């Protein structure tokens, strides 16, 4: 089993994701430079947070044209697992691997704080070590995390149970007051129809140690590792 962390110019959570995979998940992991196009050595790739290409045009809008993204599309089509975190989610949406878009937060500010999300579907490669309804405390850190999509897409996401995380309070109640950025239907993370591509705004790699205030994010990486281990048997 091997993980890869893609590095775009301007990625800045690449080292954090790498650290979690090697230290807390205990699996081999490489950095993948954005000009590399051969992903055949990997079982799962992480598109980390940051400001790819400065995000000056629109978050993720330039990264989707990077050479590695064509390979990521093929990789996903072959069934490889892709986890996009924060800027990674924005890039996946821009690249069309996930539906919808992430726009400026409702209050227009960058927001960095610990929030709560509820696990909406535990039957995915990223959440199988969790239970539906579990509340996770994970930090967010973004200015453009306000998820939008049209009514038909929302209905489809709901029908196909592709909303994986929703913003909630510590008891699991999903309300407008628990929505940090104005996301439609309190969406914090969604997956594709095949369930091998997940995008989420919260940073699970920042919540893998009690020292940092939470280790709730670890189960997401563990789920993925368990999925890969099962696939390799």
């Amino acid at each position, binding site marked *: 089993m091997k993980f890869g962390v893609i590095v775009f110019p301007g990625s800045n959570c690449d080292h954090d994701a790498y650290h979690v995979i090697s230290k807390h998940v205990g699996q081999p992991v490489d950095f993948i430079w954005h000009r590399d196009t051969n992903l055949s050595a990997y079982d799962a790739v992480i598109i980390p947070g940051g400001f790819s290409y400065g995000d000056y045009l629109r978050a993720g809008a330039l990264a989707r044209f990077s050479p590695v993204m064509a390979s990521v599309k093929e990789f996903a089509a072959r069934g490889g697992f892709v986890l996009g975190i924060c800027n990674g989610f924005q890039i996946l949406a821009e690249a069309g691997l996930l539906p919808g878009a992430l726009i400026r937060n409702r209050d227009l500010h960058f927001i960095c704080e610990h929030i709560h999300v509820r696990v909406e579907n535990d039957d995915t490669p990223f959440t199988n070590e969790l239970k539906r309804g579990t509340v996770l405390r994970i930090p967010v850190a973004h200015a453009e995390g306000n998820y939008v999509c049209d009514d038909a897409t929302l209905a489809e996401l709901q029908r196909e149970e592709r909303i994986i995380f929703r913003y909630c309070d510590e008891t699991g109640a999903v309300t407008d007051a628990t929505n940090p950025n104005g996301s439609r239907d309190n969406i914090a993370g969604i997956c594709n129809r095949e369930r091998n591509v997940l995008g989420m705004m919260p*940073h699970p790699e920042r919540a893998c140690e009690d*020292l940092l205030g939470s280790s709730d994010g670890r189960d997401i990486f563990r789920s993925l590792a368990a999925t890969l281990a099962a696939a390799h048997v």
Partner: protein
Amino acid sequence: MITSEQIAAHNLTEDEYRRIEELMGREPTLVELGIFSVMWSEHCSYKSSRIHLKRLPTTGERVVVPPGENAGVVDIGDGWCAAFKIESHNHPSFIEPFQGAATGVGGILRDIFTMGARPVAAMNSLRFGSLDNAQHGRRNRSLLAGVVAGIAHYGNAFGVPTVAGEVAFDDAYALNPLVNAYALGLVRHDQIFFGKAAGIGNPVLYVGAKTGRDGIHGATMASAEFDEEALEKRPTVQVGDPFLEKLLLEACLEAMRSGAVAGIQDMGAAGLTSSSCEMAARAGTGIELDLSLVPQREDAMTAYEMMLSESQERMLIVAHRGREREVMDIFRKWELDAVVIGRVRDDQRMRVLHNNELVADIPVAALTDEAPKYDRPMKKSGESRESRESGERKENPVDSLDSPDSLDFNAALLRLVSAPNIASKEWVYRQYDHMVRTNTAVLPGADAAVIRIKETRRALALCLDGNGRYCAVNPREGARLVVAEAARNVVCVGARPLAITNCLNFASPEKPEVMWAFSEVIDGMSEACKAFDTPVISGNVSFYNETEGRGVWPTPVIGMLGLVEDVRRIVQPGFKGAGDIIALLGTTRADTSVSEYAATILGRTTGEMIKEGRVPALDLQAELAVQKACLGAAEAGLLRSAHDCSDGGMAVALSECCFSSLNRQAIGAEVELADMLSVAARLFSETPSRIIISFEEAALGQIEEIAARAGCQLTVLGHTGGDRLRISADGDEVISLPLAEIETAWRTALENRLQAEVLVAAGE
């Protein structure tokens, strides 16, 4: 022919110009005059402060690189070192708050990675005029919103966590906001780089962003006071590009690892000019540059413009001869320019060519060592009562302000926690990514932030502290108090104070009262730094913080670094559970005449405090005892919480201990303040050298022993528990409030005042 108008336009005096002619042995060219003007500016030459700065302690067993380089470096064990520095960006932030603050962050980050250190934490210290000021309130609010947005823009995209800082308000800063940016990086002991143009014949490379016409004369702008036309100086402020800086960081660190780099320096203030001649000066060499080779953003730039441009995100690298190709390849990988533009020479001169013409030829020493040094006239400020009586500080100040008979202490506490100087700064730090790099073990809002070092069990504690009010009333005592508070703050999280960086913000040095205050601050700071064994390893002086004749208070800001030996032993301010003992390390005296209580509850202006007030007396030995006791108890693992008792006094500090925080519900407290002071003094006095601690009942004996051994007074105040804060004095309950009410007031005060400005700032 250089005219007197040109001399004046370059902010040089006639005497200074004559000295230039003497050093050159001829009349300088216009390019040379421009070079002298920036190198001899207050900002670059420290001409008014150098003779005073010498009195600061700068050595110690942990000091690896003392002041003089791009940043100071201290040893933190296990082969690791910390490089850190603070720098002001006050003038540009007033003219253009968003970009002024953003480029301040960019500049200080480059100072850190120039040393070979990867930046792992940033902080900032901000001062503005009062948010409610009738005349300037709106502008003050929008300055704050713009500065915070600019810092967030740069730091967040670059990927450095902004982990702590301070935001303070006083009308002296209304037209002179202070924006001080701090950064800290980690570097292996044997991989530190220096800004030296060493090795005769070595190639000089220009790397990073292209040069444009932005920021020309920025250093000169920052070396003069403002008049009502200040905003017309907007073109001297640069525009920052954090994305480019992030690429520059990665490329520079990679080039350094390759072994091809002999020396490296940031092009900050005075850009190409200061970087090249400072590198030559440090190495005792000369340097030759051909400006025709410099990557340019605009057409037909003159030599004068290129030498004085302050375009951001640029570096000068001296490579080992024959290895320049390696450096260029690394920069190409990161899609950055890297061009050989000159050579290191052996003649100790700075030679600048443009279009095959020699446009400047100056002895390096004339720009650096020979720059003017002034012992400016000083005059004790006549106004303050303290200065009239200095030298006869009384043991037991009698001038505490008695509260009006009818004072409702509950209402007073609610007003104090809502005062912008005390209220939660969450509205500010929520906009900063303070968790990226996954090392932040103590988040913003505590006495100091803590950054763990992944490769070791150690961690670093860092904080910024300043107090313009104290320094206005008594600069020497104020400076001692500020250093003591900074040291106490890192002790509160369980760290041993190691070293400081300082940012000295003052008005015009040409005013004898300002210069006197500067000298007093240096002496007070020296004394305190010696007592705590925390040498000054880097810093910055910012003079001319003056607009329309009105200057800022003397405002030294201290960045303290502390070392936590075991990250599992860190302590935080919040109470941990019900039934713990609450105790005070230290002693409360009547110190209310210069305080937040005097300002907020009694309505005293800082000017009135200068006339009538007295800053708290600081006994350095007592302070050391309190710190020793707190640290001893923390390192023994006995403390459940520790919090510095400062602005707003005991009642505010106790409230802050009760408030909720990450993973903690709010917890109430019931305490008795028994002593001979007035109730107002017991609640709101700002006596220094006090720490509120909490611990399990069973630990009382051990903590008493630790305190006794340290020679520190320990007083049990009460217990944690319940959902109210209840404080009694002599059997009367003087404060009893639901915690939720105090916490809501504290948490929402700043945000409520700024609501209107949110949309304006976000539009930047």
